[in-house]
């Protein structure tokens, strides 16, 4: 399946959805001018990943769970809605029997980002792994 790679800007995160290399990552700040324009290709990619055999293929060649890494420094409220949609799609992959994990990164001084992760995990009803990092940046 074709990869979806989006470069990071000051207002949009880096996105890597690369099933060939088993690399799935969101990193940076998210407050796009047009949130729908930015997130719809990502949603469409994940729906395709869910609905074709691509996820099964990735899992077959992986020794460990597929890991979706969320390394977000900041996201605005309209991005939050789409991030929830992404998490729902990932949970659907899990419900389809795909062995996967969600790693939610947060700065050691940023309790709010940890809390947001716990909150989204609860809303989507899927447990996250929380990864504390030692750096100080915001979006």
């Amino acid at each position, binding site marked *: 399946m074709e990869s979806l790679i989006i470069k990071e800007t000051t207002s949009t995160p880096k996105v890597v959805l690369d099933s060939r290399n088993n690399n799935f990552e969101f990193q940076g700040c998210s*407050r796009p001018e*047009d949130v729908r324009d930015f997130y719809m290709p990502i949603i469409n990619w994940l729906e395709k990943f869910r609905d074709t055999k691509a996820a099964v293929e990735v899992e077959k060649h992986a020794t460990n769970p597929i890991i979706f890494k969320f390394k977000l420094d*900041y996201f605005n409220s309209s991005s939050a*809605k789409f991030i929830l949609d992404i998490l729902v799609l990932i949970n659907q992959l899990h419900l389809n029997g795909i062995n996967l994990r969600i790693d939610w990164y947060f700065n050691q*001084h940023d*309790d709010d980002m940890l809390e947001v992760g716990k909150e989204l995990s609860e*809303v989507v009803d899927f447990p996250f792994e929380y990864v504390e990092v030692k750096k100080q940046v*915001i979006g």
Partner: protein
Amino acid sequence: MFQVSAQNIISFQGELTFEIIESLLNRAKQELDSMKLDLVVQKRLYSILVESLENSVKHRITVGVNRNHYPLEMNLLLQNNQFLITVCNYIKQSNAELISQKIDEVNSLNRDGLNQLYRSSIAKARISDKGGAGLGIIEMARNSGQKINYKFIQEGSELVFFILELSLLKCAQKN
């Protein structure tokens, strides 16, 4: 009572466009970076600025010249260990009641109530034509930790100047 003079961090009066909001947010980020605040406070303040300014540009309306106010008036002050954020813009009179209801609702809730409202709202949120998810006011209230003040100044029969005031303590408090 002893008063510490206010430190004006950012002040702007002028046009309301996406480019101006972008430039104000970039400037705000640089100012906040240089203030050596707790990361949590820095990010809450940045979030309040993003949500309030994005809200103003999403709901902006074109107003003619010779008005009493600029299309966008914003201010970020530090006074008595508290950040004061004011964002003002013109809106349609017909939107004032809805905004007022939303702010009154979040002001009536405590921290747990706000978190509950956020969770139920994000689960059923739909992105509007203007690109909003209807979560901005809840998010501002959660980040501020204090009541939101607002005022409408009537200008003619269909236009109001909306004044939104938020505050945030300089020292981090657990949300």
